[in-house]
């Protein structure tokens, strides 16, 4: 399935923030997690993740720290901040409304309690 580009862009921020709620992580692993979660259906140009992460950093939603990979290569880790968690909660409210609205029209069960 080919998901519309704008929709992918709109999902990107909450998706990345939600993955970071699971714990501090770095770019490649975040993308692997995206693939895993979407069963490979969400195709994403890998490189675009990084400008997005940098934007989240600038907005204060994540903090960064340089660490090292097992091979000793420098690796940048991203960790969600309190502001980021608040932002995620806000986005989640919006997505809930969006899916509930469409679900009502399409006769799908509204996501319970979400």
């Amino acid at each position, binding site marked *: 399935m080919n998901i519309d580009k704008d929709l992918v862009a709109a999902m990107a921020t909450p998706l990345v923030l939600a993955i970071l709620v699971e714990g501090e992580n770095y770019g490649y692993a975040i993308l692997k997690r995206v693939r895993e979660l979407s069963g490979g259906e969400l195709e994403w140009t*890998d490189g*675009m993740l*990084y400008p997005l992460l940098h934007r989240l950093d600038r907005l204060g939603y994540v903090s960064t720290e340089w660490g090292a990979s097992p091979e000793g290569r420098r690796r940048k880790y991203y960790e969600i901040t309190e502001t980021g968690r608040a932002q995620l909660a806000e986005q989640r409210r919006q997505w809930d409304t969006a899916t509930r609205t469409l679900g009502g029209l399409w006769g799908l069960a509204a996501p319970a309690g979400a």
Partner: protein
Amino acid sequence: MNDAAMDAETENQIAGWRAAILRGRAVDAADAGELEGHLREQVADLETAGLSGDEAFLIAVKRLGEVDALTAEYAREHSDRLWKQLAISRTDDEPRQPLVVMLVFAALAAVLIQVGRLLADIPGTDGMWFVRDLGLFVLPVLAAYFAVLRRMPVATALALFAVVAALAAAVTLFPFEPDSATGILVAIHLPIVLWFVVGVAYVGGDLRSSTRRMDFIRFTGEWVIYYALIALGGAVLLGLTSLILAPIAPDAIDDVMSWVLPSGAAGAAIVAAWLVEAKKSVIENLAPVLTAIFTPLFAIMLLVAAVGYAAVGIGREFDRDLLVVFDVLLLVVLGLVVYGISARDSGRAIRTMDVLRLVAVVAAIVLDVLVLVSMLARVGEFGFTANRVAALGLNVLLLVNLAVTAYLIARVLQGRPAVHVERWQTGYLPVFAGWVLLMVVALPPVFAFA
């Protein structure tokens, strides 16, 4: 699985790819390192899955995305880098601004200023209006230049034109008394109002975007630098011209001055704007460098001044000229801080600079409070005049801005993102704009044009 396993061929390909993404300058070395790490892991994973080094590299690079698209995305996010080196992808989708358009507008400004000068020279008229309206002969042309450049919608452009026309009508029709204080205040504030009009045109009418407003603040700083450089060159040219003319045609010197100087100064306003936009030059990183040099120096100067004035007291000799000096000083400090903050690289923020900024701002607050106290005492003693209202208002506005800025810089030092400082400053622009507009259209009638 590990780096050592990658063969020389793949290493070469990776090095070539890395050079390609660094070329546009939107991606810095640290970002390139991050992307390269990603690429290597992807290649390693694909090789584990059974692909050859060559195949793995091709697929990994394809997944990362086209180099052009990738660097363009970085440029969008790190527009400050783009600002510093306007090199990326412009050439493809946007043709370089035609030189001709700029020259036409520069010539227009140069002619208009001469028309104004000749009108003001007509015997029997009071030439003061020309000084008051000077900005009207140049800055609307600059605004029009940007309106054309940004392909502003006609409706917005007309609205902007109406605002300028209304301003022009107001300051022309106001019956100022000879040598009136309100007239001088209008002469000071009108160019600033018009500069905000230029700002509206500069952002192409996109007033709500904080990023665009920040671009305009950067533009203002760079425009001042370019204008100063052109003015220096012009001064040398005119100085040498008059020296050369002196032995053969001493009478011609005045003519040359009265024709070349105003036209040159007016045209240079457009040329400087074009230089900032087109980045023709070598001095692209000048503003951040100047900020870095002068922030510590101003911090020291302000600290000394604050301590000195606090110890001695501002005294009764505090007159209008000194007040103007103080206001300019406070504005310069604000400019340095905003510039410095916007140019700082979040990856390599220098803590010392933030501390210095905080010192400068706090010292500026102390000075501002001293000035305000002395002014309030005067108002209490002698009542309000147009000058005192203008000075008091500006200092209160600056005090509020500086106080919040100091708080936000302190938060930055605690690790909060610097974007809040930018947002605060860009959000404050309308307050300044509203205030200077009041000074031009409301203050003169209130004080009966005295």
